[in-house]
């Protein structure tokens, strides 16, 4: 009984540590020139590295963040992170409306990870507006998955788990 409690404590600590490492890992990769609408506008402290998220997802007992794909529906249909929810491209008004619907009713401190991976990080038009909207809606625990090149290179080809379909 005691050992189970100990194991739960270890797992919980590991999850917290992984979520926390996002800050340190993200800083070394952030793009230098930010503008208001690109992913580069997202603060470094909100970046989450792919390997960190992958490890977090492998922890069975850890609280999983809500994962929202805010990019292309076609890319989502080809492959997406298991459990991720398609939430519309953040660069389009209709996409932001869908995102708003997907997070309606959620606790504002719910851990959320948004990702796209349509294009190289500083050329992605979807993440910046999606991140901004979630922050405006009052979500305090939002991370953006840092995919330097694209979802194929930085997630699929690393052997991390994917699902297909909508």
């Amino acid at each position: 009984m005691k050992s189970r409690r100990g194991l739960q404590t270890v797992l919980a600590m590991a999850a917290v540590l992984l979520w926390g490492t996002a800050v340190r890992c993200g800083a070394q990769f952030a793009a230098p020139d930010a503008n208001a609408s690109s992913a580069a506008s997202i603060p470094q402290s909100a970046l989450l590295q792919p390997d960190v998220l992958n490890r977090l997802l492998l922890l069975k007992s850890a609280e999983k963040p809500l994962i929202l794909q805010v990019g292309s529906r076609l890319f989502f249909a080809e492959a997406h992170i298991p459990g991720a929810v398609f939430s519309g491209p953040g660069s389009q008004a209709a996409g932001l409306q869908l995102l708003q619907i997907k997070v309606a009713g959620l606790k504002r401190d719910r851990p959320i990870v948004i990702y796209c991976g349509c294009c190289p990080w500083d050329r992605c038009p979807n993440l910046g507006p999606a991140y901004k909207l979630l922050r405006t809606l009052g979500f305090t625990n939002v991370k953006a998955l840092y995919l330097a090149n694209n979802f194929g290179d930085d997630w699929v080809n690393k052997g991390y788990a994917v699902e297909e379909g909508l």
Partner: protein
Amino acid sequence: MRWKRVCRPALLIAALFLAAGAGRAADPARTLLDQPAPQFVRSDLDGLRVDLSAYRGKVVLLNFWAGWCAPCLTEMPRFNAWQREFGTQKLQVLGVSMDEVEDADAVRTLRRKLGVDYPILMGDAALGKLYGGILGVPVSFLIDRQGVIRARFQGETGLAAMEKRIRTLLAQP
């Protein structure tokens, strides 16, 4: 003793982390290189039939793009210039828009705005998977006269390198 019971699972978890990081899958798109290009038949934005096999004997530049992708829109006028320079007897540029099929009208408008007159068709997840997974754009494939994929360019590639490769393929029988 109790500490051991707690530590053992922690060590197992650490090992799991290392194993997860070490596992790297083969890049499925790379395996297409030097292989026959996957065949497809689609209709382009003007309703004309596009059968990839019909372009055998020409070098084909197959470009996957999307309207929201800034680097894609930079490349396309250049592709159009190559199409005009080399002529459709030697080179065929084919564009595959990875926008939603409902956005076909917007894609037509964009095509006009960019002055692009090579065939453009609407892509989908099935076509993307056929080409090893198109999970980011732009992606371009160069297919030789025999229908074999000879190069794959991803992201903001140097167009000079791509042009050089096209010239090389055009020089081959």
